[in-house]
């Protein structure tokens, strides 16, 4: 296992550097194609400008430099592990991102955990009762979640749980200014996390449930299942140890790929719930043409996806030792 981790790390590192560099250069050049710049945005937010104030802003933002110089500056900073400075927010990009990163990670990990736990549980139940009424009913529910956009599920959840019942808060990641500490603070954070995480997870629950059901049914027909039954194992243990464990390989593969999607889907959910995450930061950076911030977010997101894929690789090795290090 130790050799395996080392090999995976080495391979990931070799892949990651050129991938990230390519992403950065491509993103940078694509962003140049967007009409307008950061100074235009600031002037239009103010609704007023003079030629002098525009020139001052452009100089402050470094926009008076040629594009190539701007790119070289950015890459130069990056080589020193410096994500640069956001003139719009008047702070280093890395601070800006680190403020948001925990929020986004918490939301993503919780949503993914919800999606996997609920999805796999529902999928297993559907597979165990395939073709009978629990399967039929759950299929309909799953189809519903599969076809409804997450933000709508979120809005309806807000209307029900926050407005009508008043059980859960509708915005933010904590009760601002309440000065809570200890368990009260953790409970408060969790209460704020439930609705956005469920809204973000709803679509993926459906995906994993269907995937688990299909792969478990596939596994049921394998020879080793018959052997296990012949050995006289308890049916529940057969399902759990033999069927589910084998069925998890495709589910985890897809979940790894979904991490990128989750980052994207988070923009909508974060906006809806006023959640201070990176998705909103990225969206605001696009609208504000704050490219240093945006490139920082993109860089970190690609890094996250690469790391997640590496973890999935390792998870596969644990689930199915036959999958070798290529």
């Amino acid at each position: 296992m130790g050799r395996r981790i080392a090999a995976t790390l080495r391979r990931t590192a070799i892949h990651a550097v050129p991938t990230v560099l390519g992403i950065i250069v491509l993103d940078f050049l694509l962003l140049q194609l967007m009409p307008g710049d950061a100074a235009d945005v600031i002037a239009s937010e103010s609704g007023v400008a003079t030629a002098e104030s525009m020139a001052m802003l452009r100089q402050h933002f470094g926009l008076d430099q040629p594009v190539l110089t701007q790119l070289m500056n950015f890459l130069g900073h990056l080589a020193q592990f410096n994500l640069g400075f956001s003139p719009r927010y008047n702070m280093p990009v890395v601070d800006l991102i680190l403020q948001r990163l925990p929020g986004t990670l918490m939301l993503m990990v919780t949503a993914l955990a919800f999606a996997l736990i609920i999805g796999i549980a529902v999928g297993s139940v559907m597979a165990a009762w395939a073709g009978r009424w629990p399967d039929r009913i759950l299929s309909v529910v799953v189809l519903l979640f599969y076809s409804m956009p997450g933000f709508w599920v979120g809005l309806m959840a807000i209307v029900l749980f926050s407005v009508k019942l008043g059980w859960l808060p509708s915005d933010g990641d904590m009760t601002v200014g309440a000065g809570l500490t200890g368990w009260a603070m953790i409970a408060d954070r969790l209460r704020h996390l439930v609705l956005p995480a469920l809204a973000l997870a709803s679509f993926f629950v459906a995906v994993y449930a269907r995937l688990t059901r299909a792969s478990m049914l596939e596994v049921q027909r394998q020879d080793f299942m018959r052997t296990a039954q012949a050995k006289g194992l308890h049916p529940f243990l057969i399902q759990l140890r033999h069927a589910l464990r084998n069925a998890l390989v495709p589910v985890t593969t897809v979940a790894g790929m979904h991490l990128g999607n989750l980052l994207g889907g988070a923009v909508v959910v974060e906006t809806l719930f006023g959640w201070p995450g990176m998705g909103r930061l990225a969206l605001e950076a696009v609208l504000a043409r704050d490219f240093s911030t945006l490139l920082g977010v993109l860089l970190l997101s690609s890094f996250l996806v690469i790391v997640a894929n590496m973890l999935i690789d390792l998870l596969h090795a644990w689930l199915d030792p036959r999958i070798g290090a290529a």
Partner: protein
Amino acid sequence: MTAKFRPTRRAALAGVSALAFMGGRGYAQTATPRKGGTLTFIQNSEPQTLVALTTVATPALTVSAKVTEGLLEYDYDIKPRPLLAIEWSISPDGKTYTFKLRPNVKFHDGKPFTSADVAYSIQLLKTVHPRGRNTFANVLEVKTPDPLTAVIELSKPAPYLIRALTAAETPMMPRHIYEGTDPLGNPNGNAPVGTGPYKFKEWVRGSHIIYERNADYWDPDLPRIDRMVCKFLPDTGARSIAFENKSADIGYRMPVALSDLERLKKLPHLEFETDGTSYSYNVSCLQFNLDSQYFKHLKVRQAVAHAINRELLIKTVCYGYGTVCYSPIAPGLKDFHDPTPSPYTLDLKKAEQLLDEAGFPRGADKIRFRVPLDYNPIGDESLRLSEFLRASLSRIGIGVEVRSADISAFVKRVYTDRAFDFTYNGHSNLFDPTVGVQRIYWSKNFKKGVPFSNGSHYENPKVDALLEGAAVENDPVKRKAMFVEFQKIVAEEIPDIPLYSPLFLTIKNRRVHDDSLTADGVEANMSRVWLDA
């Protein structure tokens, strides 16, 4: 036309003011203010900096004055009242302004506030503030004969200056923090120090700002609340819900979608207020590019004007929350507004005839010409309004294609590339037409690459002379006459068609009192606000 529009407007206004009266304002003024509590106010978007020094974007304006105060505050009619200055006088020639400052005022870091800060702030605003460069253009120097006296010397009179001194428009900055630094990069923008009733505590990006009561405020009775929380809620639906489930106390300048208002008005705990929005009125207009092959013809512009029904527009697009406006100077600016209706009344036959005369007959498909309409995406009514205009103009054979873009792309297209024909746009009038209106019509302000300059490329020497004259005219009667004549000329020549002036409501929970006591309402320092238990 006049007879037709009056009932609509009056009905809309009456409806709104009735609501305002229902909302316990009498109670607020008679009851004893209670101390303590936390006020939560919500904003659509996050400010980029917490001091309105290098930007006048609404999110920054809304929070700035809580910490950083101004020399004066203003009543609803924009008459000045003391704030950091307790007395002021203007010399008869209008070129010397003398301010006596409030004694014993301290910044939050303990340093005293003196006339040196005033002098420094005005010079700083003159160089880095988006409007300060114009507002203070005539400032020769600011003399400081003693620590509590500041004298502004002007090269020419600036009759608008005395109305420009609110906290958000002309913030009094701490000289000891800014001197010798880059004002755009100064950390004070992220963690401000000022003289205001609230001290900055924390700013969690993407979430909220917290202000704490300043126990050493120069008025020992104020402020009344312990804490103020400003939350950013970018989703309009989420903002309505925040008012509904009481997690938001107050929101400013129409914080929710117009379509949600009717539902929210049924909730007994909410109050809708029109006070405290008179410092800056907006006028929304259909602005032509006079270099366009179609709209360079006066007759085509007249035809467009004849085809638009402003009353219907307000009723359908704005749900009634607007006032018909024929002039680039908003009706709210009573000292300058000319209420004469447009000479071009709703008349489709006349419009068709004008287009025929201009040489644009209806083609085989009944269309005279096709033209793109760009709209300013700030404000959620813009797209609906553009669609309304498309429908209106299709009736006279002009095929309009509505083109969407985000704000940066819009500004670049209109003001830098000038690759547009006409646009639905909005301008803030502010407290005086010289500051808010002149820029749109003055030929010397046709500047490529400068947003919200003279985007039509309008040139009329007579208009230039009137605007330049009014900018330095000391006599209010003569000054008004100049603006009225200006309004007559642009109403005839229509480089743009003013459509309406939006009505901004402040929405608040009924437990909030005394929040909007000045012309700039929630944008002021809110030192007197208090909350029911």
